[in-house]
């Protein structure tokens, strides 16, 4: 089995004249929960959109499970966008069932059983016949997660999945992400909160489309040289370092 789930080599992407991803190289090991951390506008969402094939690199290359992202290998990936991106008029079950069909679960019995399993997993069984428009924001996030993982993909991209969630639901989400990585899936999560960062096995700090730090949460904290440093301290430390390096150049 390939030990690398995602391999990014000298990736560059521009929106018009604005460089959003700048000569970025990265390898994400298989079976890990990997965090893309950074402030708003640092390039997290653009990077995820590149990784799922919605955007094409201006330069460089991306390999997800050994393949360049395209529609022909989209079944290997799950994608939960930043917005819930659901069909408001349809019920919870109809939304998840639609994505199950689109991702190739054709056998009706198997699909129904998998959809029911996912609805229970995201703890929305009592709401399965409720139209999505009548759900709270947190419930919509859970439906969206269900749609992203219904086809049991080995590689899952989650763009700010815990935004707007209550703390207890956030903990449940992370429990579930950890169970997915234990079963061999690779999860790539973008976030701008350090709460999420602490749950990741490995993470990068992104700033202006560049990686300013890479490591485990403990490694990043200890790099500051302070024994009681938080991940926020670590992030600020690496920002200062990158600014100093820029000034030297």
């Amino acid at each position, binding site marked *: 089995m390939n030990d690398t789930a995602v391999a990014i080599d000298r990736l560059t992407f521009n929106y018009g004249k604005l460089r959003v991803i700048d000569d970025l190289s990265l390898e994400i090991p298989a079976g890990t929960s990997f965090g893309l951390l950074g402030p708003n506008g640092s390039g997290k969402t653009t990077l995820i959109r590149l990784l799922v094939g919605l*955007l*094409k690199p201006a330069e460089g290359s991306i390999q997800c499970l050994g393949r360049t992202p395209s*529609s022909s290998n989209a079944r290997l990936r799950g994608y939960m966008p930043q*917005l819930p991106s659901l*069909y408001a008029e*349809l019920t919870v079950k109809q939304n998840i069932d639609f994505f199950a*069909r*689109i*991702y190739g679960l054709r056998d009706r019995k198997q699909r129904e059983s998998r959809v029911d399993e996912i609805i229970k997993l995201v703890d929305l069984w009592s709401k399965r016949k409720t139209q999505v428009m009548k759900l709270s924001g947190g419930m919509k996030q859970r439906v969206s997660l269900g*749609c992203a993982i219904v086809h049991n993909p080995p590689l899952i991209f989650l763009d700010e999945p815990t935004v707007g969630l209550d703390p207890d639901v956030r903990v449940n989400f992370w429990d579930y992400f950890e169970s997915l990585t234990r079963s061999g899936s690779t999860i790539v999560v973008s976030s701008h909160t350090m709460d999420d960062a602490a749950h990741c096995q490995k993470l990068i700090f992104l700033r202006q489309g560049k990686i300013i730090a890479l490591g485990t949460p403990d490694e990043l904290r200890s790099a500051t040289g302070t024994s009681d440093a938080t991940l926020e301290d670590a992030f600020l430390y690496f920002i200062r370092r990158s600014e100093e390096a820029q000034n030297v150049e």
Partner: protein
Amino acid sequence: MLSNAFSIAGRIINQLIRDRRTMGLLIIAPLLIASIVGVSVPDKRILDYTAPAMLAMLILFFGFLLTGISFQRERSQGTLERLMAAPVSRLDVVSGYLMGFLLFALAQTLIIFFYMVYVLDINFQGDLWQIIVFQAIIGVGAVCLGTFTSTFARNEFQIMQFIPIVILPQFFLCGLLWPVEQLPEYLQWIAKFLPLTYGVDGIRAMMLEGESLLGVIKEVGVLAGFAAGFVVLASLTLRRGTSG
């Protein structure tokens, strides 16, 4: 091969059926317009002459409006992007939309048609099924035109702004209000490039003169060409991987 397109069409049908207010408006709006036309035209012979053209006009208008707004909503809500990250082709998406919305556009046409025939008592000739097939061809073009146009709009409001640009010129130049031959030459030339001109010519020939589909094969061919062109344009403008 088209299983994803059928899934998308099924989802659209499900969505619209569950949206009761939209369903109500889909039925009431064409009946209201047909009634206004029926009541406002004083001479029965003029109504017989106007009704087929109105039928072609209304399927183009409602097909465009329904598809344009729905497709734009999918773009703004992010559901289209989510779909484009899935294992679907652009043709799957466009043909899925085509099938889903065509059903409603056709249902609207049938409602208007039967209302005009049985309530407003307009006379028509020709086979009913052939007339419906011809209307379906106009509907395909309308749905594809709506999908294509939605590419250029950033929100639903902008889709409405496209009506005076895309629909109204066709309304004025198609021969519905006055014969195309009486227009200035340059407008006659423009009218030749508008699908509704062929829709009105064809449906008038069928309903007023009893022509079959074969009798209006030129109009069928041109409308099918427009529809195919809009399908291709809609597919091409449905971007999956924007280069940066």
